[in-house]
């Protein structure tokens, strides 16, 4: 019964949502609207679930002194401090009725002074690793690798004003060979073709998986039933 009821709910909602998308008459359209509203409500509960899961995992790591457990302590402290300051608007000049990210509030300070620079720093490190990895791994070893390498070099230069400057001497009849034009061509044609192929493949996979879930063939999302 614990497995059958979720399967029935999934089947009914799946069928109604698919039908409601194509049939714009009652009762499907009203059910479609209601389910959309329910979705908005349910997703909010995902935050509670996510927070609970984060607490559970990291508390377990700390209590069992698992590898790198001090990082879990940092995660827990950061999570709880942010949660308390945000929920109870601690240090907010306007009190509980003040703006959540009001100027001068503690949460604003944490966002601007801690979260902002930390996120930016983590993302900026990519530039260093990408440069080092490109130098070591980007080799024209095969025909395919050479094509990839050439495309990458054209895009790298074509996406900067230097690319335009380097090929500005070309006559009008060869304008298509100017680096920015070549970069645009790569993005608009080979890239688009590849992206479309990937997207269509993913879409077909999603349709197949969705049908399997709606029809109750795919049941992994129900867990192991313990």
């Amino acid at each position, binding site marked *: 019964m614990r497995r059958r009821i979720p399967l029935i709910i999934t089947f009914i909602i799946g069928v109604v949502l698919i039908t409601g998308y194509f049939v714009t008459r009652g009762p499907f359209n009203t059910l479609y609207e209601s389910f*959309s509203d329910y*979705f908005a409500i349910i997703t909010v509960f995902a935050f509670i679930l996510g927070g609970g899961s984060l607490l559970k995992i990291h508390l377990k790591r700390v209590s069992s002194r698992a590898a790198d457990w001090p990082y879990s302590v940092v995660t827990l402290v950061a999570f709880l401090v942010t949660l308390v300051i945000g929920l109870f608007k601690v240090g907010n000049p306007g009190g509980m009725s003040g703006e959540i990210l009001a100027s001068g509030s503690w949460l604003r300070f944490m966002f601007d002074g801690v979260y902002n620079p930390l996120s930016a720093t983590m993302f900026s490190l990519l530039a260093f690793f990408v440069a080092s990895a490109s130098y070591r791994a980007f080799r024209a070893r095969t025909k395919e690798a050479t094509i990839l390498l050439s495309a990458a070099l054209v895009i790298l230069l074509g996406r900067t004003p230097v690319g335009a400057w380097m090929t500005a001497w070309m006559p009008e009849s060869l304008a298509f060979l100017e680096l920015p034009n070549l970069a645009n061509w790569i993005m608009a044609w080979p890239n688009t073709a590849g992206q479309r192929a990937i997207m269509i493949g993913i879409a077909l996979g999603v349709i197949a998986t969705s049908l399997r879930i709606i029809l109750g063939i795919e049941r992994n999302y129900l867990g192991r039933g313990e």
Partner: protein
Amino acid sequence: MRIPDSILRIDRRIIFLLIGAAVCIPLILKPRFQDSPTPIVQSIFDTVERLPAGSRVFLSFDYGPDTAPELDPMAKALVRHTMTRGHEVSFFTLFPEGVGQIKKITDNLLPVEFPDKAYGRDYVNLGYKAGLGGAINTMVVNFRTLVNADAEGTPLDDLPITADVDEMVDYVIILSLTAGDPGLKEWIQFAGDIAGIPVMGGGTAVVAPELYPYYPQQLVGLMGGLKGASEYESALVDRYPTYRNATMEATMRMGPQVVTHVLIVLLVLLGNLAYFLGRSDRRNRAGRTGQ
């Protein structure tokens, strides 16, 4: 150790130092690179430009601080443009961190550059809504169910800018600044295609290639990375010379980007040169040993 081998085994800290210098030196010297808008960026500018003054524009900040260096300049350029044109802008975000990005605009840019523009009349912050692509679907199906107040809880009916907004289609265009999922792709799939609202915007250089398949039928225009932002800024300055002296962040940041790109190209070429020299060297030695 032979020269090609020593080049190939260069300490990665030297590469890190070179990249650091390639970023820092242009930031200090501030070289200016002239840019001109490509058609894919120009089409966003033209659409915003052609809208009659007072048009309702929906601007979604679907990114956080990590991608802000690329997307903040786009946000500023779009806000400057829409405000100069006299449009009514509703700010929104599908990212929890996007709230902070909106606040940077409403607290720092708007009061300084557009002191005559009033909150609730010329712009509004609709805040963050959970639900990823599903939230967009809910807004298209029943806008007021999900969005019935601004970010601070003021009912939409009490704000002149949103009092008449009952449905998503009351907005003439949707602009999204995208760092991943959810973002422009979801706005196209759930709002643009279904409700028929023109969708356009910008994405990080990593995200932009994924969005090209939608252009130009489903996506009116796209700013890809810092270059896209720089192109939009140049279009803005060309049309409105009053912005000539304003700080155009993307144009400024193109300096480090140009030098870094050139450096990476040189490093890749050097790496390949060393690889091929080393390979022919090894072949020659093997040939001599065989004799």
